């Protein structure tokens, strides 16, 4: 009855506190940020779009942005690869198994990301669990550098952000009509064919939702990026922090923040719409 066509003011009333919070805590600071970014110098003299020109002319800054987006995409992809087996295991489990899987997925969310990040430092360190195991087993002859590497960062972020992917994927899998899988099986399809022709296409919305959540979370994960990536890997969040706090160049860091925000939202929007169009494309065949 309360269709999208009728927007009675009273119906929107309960959303008001959230809207006010959103306005005060997100939109207003963003406007201030836009304003700050338009100054020519850190002394706030003279308006000019020079900060944006400076960013796009600077190979280093552009690379930092691209690498940050790449990190988000890699973490999201790896999470996606891991989420489906987890989801399928969940689907195939009994009550206890499902409760256990849910618990294991939720568990990381109950600990702070700082704690989880430190756990990864312990695991990936030179004297960490991975290195000492491999050395003890004689598989490696010297400790490998895992911490403060790109690969280590991707793996750690994937573990930390995995719940954001696993939950929507499981939700989509649960909503998948089990008879469709049986129908495919009865028609002679093997497991892989069933997965790729039936399960995957029909759970794409969940996968995309998860992908976008993980992408945005991983690209902006300041703490984990800093602690697991170290000072060696420069990514947008730490670059912004450094330019604002270390260099005290507020206009440039404001411009960095806005470019980063626009890039992340842009990718989220782009992936969201193209995948939806793609999904419609499948439908329209």
């Amino acid at each position, binding site marked *: 009855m309360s269709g999208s066509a009728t927007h009675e003011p009273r119906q929107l009333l309960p959303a008001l506190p959230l809207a006010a919070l959103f306005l005060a805590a997100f939109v207003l600071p963003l406007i*201030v940020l836009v304003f700050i970014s338009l100054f020519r110098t850190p002394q706030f003299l003279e308006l000019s779009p020079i900060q944006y020109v400076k960013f796009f002319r600077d190979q280093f800054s552009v690379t930092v942005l691209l690498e940050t987006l790449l990190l988000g995409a890699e973490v999201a992809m790896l999470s996606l690869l891991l989420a489906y087996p987890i989801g399928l295991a969940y689907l195939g489990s009994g009550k206890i198994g499902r409760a256990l899987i849910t618990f294991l997925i939720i568990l990381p969310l109950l600990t702070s990301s700082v704690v989880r990040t430190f756990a990864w430092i312990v695991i990936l*360190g030179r*004297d960490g669990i991975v290195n000492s195991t491999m050395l003890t087993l004689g598989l490696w002859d010297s400790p490998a550098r895992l911490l403060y590497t790109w690969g280590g960062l991707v793996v750690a972020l994937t573990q930390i952000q995995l719940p954001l992917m696993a939950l929507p994927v499981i939700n989509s899998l649960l909503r998948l009509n089990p008879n469709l899988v049986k129908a495919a099986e009865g028609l002679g399809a093997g497991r892989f064919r069933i997965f790729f022709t039936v399960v995957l296409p029909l759970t794409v919305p969940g996968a995309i939702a998860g992908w976008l959540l993980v992408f945005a979370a991983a690209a902006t994960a300041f703490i984990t990026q800093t602690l697991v990536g*170290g*000072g060696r890997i420069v990514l947008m969040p730490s670059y912004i922090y450094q330019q604002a706090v270390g260099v005290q160049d507020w206009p440039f860091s404001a411009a960095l923040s806005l470019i980063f925000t626009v890039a992340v939202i842009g990718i989220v929007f782009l992936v969201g719409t193209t995948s939806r169009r793609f999904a419609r494309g499948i439908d329209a065949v």
Partner: protein
Amino acid sequence: MNLSRRAFLGNSAALAAGIGFSDMSHAATQIVATTYPGSFDEAFKGVVGPAFAKSSGGSVSFTPLLGVDQIGKIQASRNAPPFDVVLFDEGPLVPAIESGVLEKFPAEKSKGFADIPQAFRHPDGYAPVITVQLIGIAYNPKKVKTPPTSWEDLWKPEYKGRVGITGLGSSLGTAFMVEIAKMNGGSETNIEPAFEAMKKLLPNVGAIAASPGALAALFQQGEIDIAFNYWNNVALLAAKGVDIAFASPKTGAVAVRSSAQIVKNNQAPKLVLDYLDAVMSFEVQKALEASPWVMMPTNKNVPLTGANLTVAKSVDDLVAKSVLLDWTKFQPLRGEWITRFTKEVRI
């Protein structure tokens, strides 16, 4: 358009915050002082807080913050600053004074000022230095058999992949780079030789830490065996049983002077002065010097003990031996240096 930075910051912050979330009305019997996060904060809470309460009857609430974060917060609320006393290394003190948020120190009213050596008094009349952070070479004595004697030792090929560094965002990294520049024919304003030297150091660099604290932690994790670092960090880790030792380079350890400064428009000028006097007092400085804090005192009457004796015989000896840098010369250049370091020093 010519808008002053502080007016702009003040307005925009007020705009962003709506009404402002800062605590504007702390009672006059309480002051707010900042500390640095970590052991510094613990030491001040444990030692300075009680001593101040006893000597003045007031109380102090401590807020751990990094030096650079403090300036912005005061600027955002100049008429009712969120802190009464702020803590600065030499570097961030320069822009803090420039931005006009600090008040000069009423030396004539102070009880403790007489005990502070000239090197620790501010040339322009701001509050004096209350502790010194010494920068030297930290190393793992189990892996590095001959204790290093000079900054150049970091370049030794035997330390390939075992050296840790940190960027110019910290006083630590900045002081190191300036020393390296001086060592290679540069100066406090000519950093070029330091960047060239860093390029040669890269094969040795095993990790670039995001902060001095993270650099110290790298020893604990066994990621690195040698790095420039603060004496205080090393002493604290060594006391915990980590394999780490400290060596002063033959050119002298660099001393970074930290001072507690008075914020303009603070709520209780009398209590603030009492607080600074408490921090400079013999009793407090002696307690901070002792284990487990091992902070370097600046009150010349405080004798050095324990681990501190291994780096200097007395406060006067400390002043005589240490390298002091003129941060006013290069602090304005630091922003550029930080960005350049991030771009050029990559492994």
